[in-house]
């Protein structure tokens, strides 16, 4: 069940997230946002293995990989590490009237689909 919009933090207009990895400040600290396969994903900025900077992640399909040691996180599966290592913390995203929102509540489970396609 979707939570009230007041629980969602606006990150910016969806057009700001067309390509690459964007960084945004929230009350929980920095988060990164990427658009993969038409969907927006928000996640922690550092790899849970060695603290690699995921702004330099290598995306492929719905996954991103840390450039330091190749840990690979499936963002369509809430950040599960594909080799069985620790997962990446991800955040639910939502599009509303062209604005991308993020929820820092770990119980919220939404992923925004881009309307840019």
């Amino acid at each position, binding site marked *: 069940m979707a939570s009230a919009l007041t629980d969602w933090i606006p990150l910016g207009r969806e057009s700001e997230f067309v390509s690459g990895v964007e960084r945004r400040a929230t009350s929980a600290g920095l988060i990164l946002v990427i658009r993969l396969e038409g969907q927006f994903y928000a996640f922690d900025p550092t790899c849970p*293995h*060695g603290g690699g900077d995921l702004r330099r992640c290598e995306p*492929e399909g719905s996954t991103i*990989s840390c450039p*330091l040691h190749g840990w*690979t996180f499936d963002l369509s599966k809430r950040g599960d590490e594909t080799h069985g290592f620790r997962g990446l913390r991800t955040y639910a995203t939502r599009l509303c009237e062209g604005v991308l929102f993020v929820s820092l509540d770990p119980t919220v489970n939404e992923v925004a689909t881009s309307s840019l396609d």
Partner: protein
Amino acid sequence: MADAKAPTYTGIFNNVRTIGQLLAGDRLKWQTELAVGAPSLPFMLHLSCFVHYTPHIPLLAQQILERIGIDCPILGGPENCCGAIHVHMGDAALGEQAARIGIGGFRRARPTTILSVCPDCDEMFAQFMPKIAPFRHSNISEIFVEQLAKLESIMQPVNRRVMIHSHDSNTQRQRDKSNIETVLRAIPGLEIVETKHAGGIGPHCQILAPMPPPLQDAMFDEAVALGVDTLIVPYHSCYRQHLKCELRWPVNVQHYISLIGESLGLHEEEEYKKLRLLDNVDDAVEMLRPRFEPLGYTPEQVRPLIEWAVYC
């Protein structure tokens, strides 16, 4: 499984993981990280990334150390990359970060000594080791020399006439060269011939400074002229570059750790060499089929990995 041909870190690390898994199976056991507060481990063998292609080397290294009373668990894999891959790809800052993370990972084991088989790891970790080193990081050839009396007491004859390929581009490599020659000279029956053309360029072959074909030809021609039956190489990268020459010259190519192992009655199959000496990628895929199919890989997924890792 990533596209093995793509020059990405993801592709490189996944190639290492997958080929390593297919070649070593469950034989090679290593830890990727140690928990804070885990029991202290005096010795650990660092398994560098590309050594996954040649698992017989760390397997034999571990067994040799066991024979001389050194229990040496293995820590490694891409999770403990020294950062040389990043430096090779032009990312010096990422390389430094990876090296420092690797050193931090070792520290958690509170080891006395971390042993290495890789020249790149030696140089990266040495470059970024804290001024007051929390542990000794050493190429494994150092330990073999330090423990030579124990090794000599259990070595059996290996009746071969060999040539030693070496690198002497810096003091670390010169030390390895001297150590390797010292330990090989201790093997009864092993005849080491003097050569003019067995020196490599750079710190090691294959990746950064592959031995140019004319020099490689000269080395193997000299080996044949001198009646050498085995070319001994110091590093896994040299092994990967030169073993394919077995197809053209009647000279066996072996890593020096294999020779030490042989003198102790130890043997591990050289799976990478078997794949390469098939000299046919399709045949190599077929050879690995019984291993990759149970893991859910398809021939189409495995073929580019073999092309990249073995037939490069």
